[in-house]
């Protein structure tokens, strides 16, 4: 909808103050990169780049050429002849080189090798710093790119359930391992966003609030160990339907 590819069925979307659907101003100033990007079947990679240069006002041909060369993408072939990984890499390069004030990447790393993904994240960061602009990235590989992010938005069933700075997000939850009663004597049950039964009375709980120094001390004195919760795990707990995750499926009621 932001990219003007779908018309909203209700409500209103505005990008740069205008309705994005069929809007030239929004089209030249925004780009939406995903693994289903449509390019003309009649044009080679080289011709696609030439056309992009004419369309996008901020297009950086030098950057595009250098990245295409670095990632070893042949410019004389057609887009549908590229392998899955190479097509994703090309789309990502296209997204970067367009230098659009609103740049959206929807799962840009699908099919890319680990090393290519690392290179892409670094290219993204470097180009963002040289030419700051709004970049929105959706990804299931939060662990890999969390350090380069500034803010995070979690979406569950189509609605936004959290929007925070990445640092606050990472500090928002705490993992507690220990005796269930000791944990419950300090922590309110409502704050628990994930619980896993370990052995005997031992549980692993994730609480969705930052604990005070006093609470931390009370817990550690009761033998409860306090750990950091990985950002990717936390997103999983917050977007999960149950508080026990996959284990609930295997628990006979």
């Amino acid at each position, binding site marked *: 909808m932001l990219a003007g590819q779908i018309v909203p069925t209700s409500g209103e979307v505005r990008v740069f103050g205008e309705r994005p659907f069929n809007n030239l101003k929004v089209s030249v100033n925004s780009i939406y990169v995903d693994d289903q990007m449509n390019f003309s079947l009649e044009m080679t990679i080289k011709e696609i780049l030439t056309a992009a240069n004419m369309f996008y006002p901020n297009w950086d041909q030098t950057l595009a050429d250098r990245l295409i060369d670095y990632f070893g993408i042949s410019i004389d072939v057609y887009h549908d002849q590229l392998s899955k990984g190479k097509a994703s890499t090309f789309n990502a390069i296209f997204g970067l080189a367009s230098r659009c004030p609103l740049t959206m990447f929807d799962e840009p790393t699908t099919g890319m090798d680990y090393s290519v993904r690392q290179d892409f*994240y*670094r290219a993204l*960061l*470097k180009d963002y*710093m040289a030419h700051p602009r709004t970049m929105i990235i959706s990804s299931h590989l939060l*662990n890999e790119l*969390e*350090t*380069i*992010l*500034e803010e995070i938005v979690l979406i569950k069933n189509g609605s936004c359930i959290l929007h925070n*700075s*990445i*640092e606050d997000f*990472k*500090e928002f939850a705490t993992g507690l391992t220990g005796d269930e009663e000791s944990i419950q004597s300090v922590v309110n049950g409502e704050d628990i966003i994930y619980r896993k039964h370990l052995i005997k009375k031992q549980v692993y709980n994730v609480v969705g609030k930052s604990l005070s120094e006093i609470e931390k001390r009370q817990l*550690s*004195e009761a033998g409860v160990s306090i*750990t*950091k919760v*990985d950002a990717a795990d936390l997103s999983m707990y917050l977007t999960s339907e149950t508080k026990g995750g996959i284990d609930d499926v295997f628990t006979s009621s």
Partner: protein
Amino acid sequence: MVLNNDSSKPIYIQIAEWLETEIINGNINANEKMYSQYQLADLFNINPATAAKGINILAQHDVLYKKRGLGMFVQEQAKDQILLRRKNENLKQMIHDFLQEADYLNIGDQELMELIEKVKKERWENS
């Protein structure tokens, strides 16, 4: 240095500690310009906002001062200040952990003091 993303220490705290270590080691001296958030972001592959947060911690501790339009600079007494604060905070934390362990083991104050004396003596004999 490589940042540890799995550590319970947030990235910006690790950045702040790294900067402090740079000052202690004399890689940045008093009245010299501190690295910018963009230099740090590039160096550690992190978002510049995270890097800025790390730099701000040093500014809050008065280790850095701001020159209008020029950026952050290292305070005259920065090195001593960092060392003093690390001593106070780290040592206090260690004593806290130590006392907690003693509680677990049901060791009273008397026994604790005897233990400290014993270890001190062993150290002295060994040196």
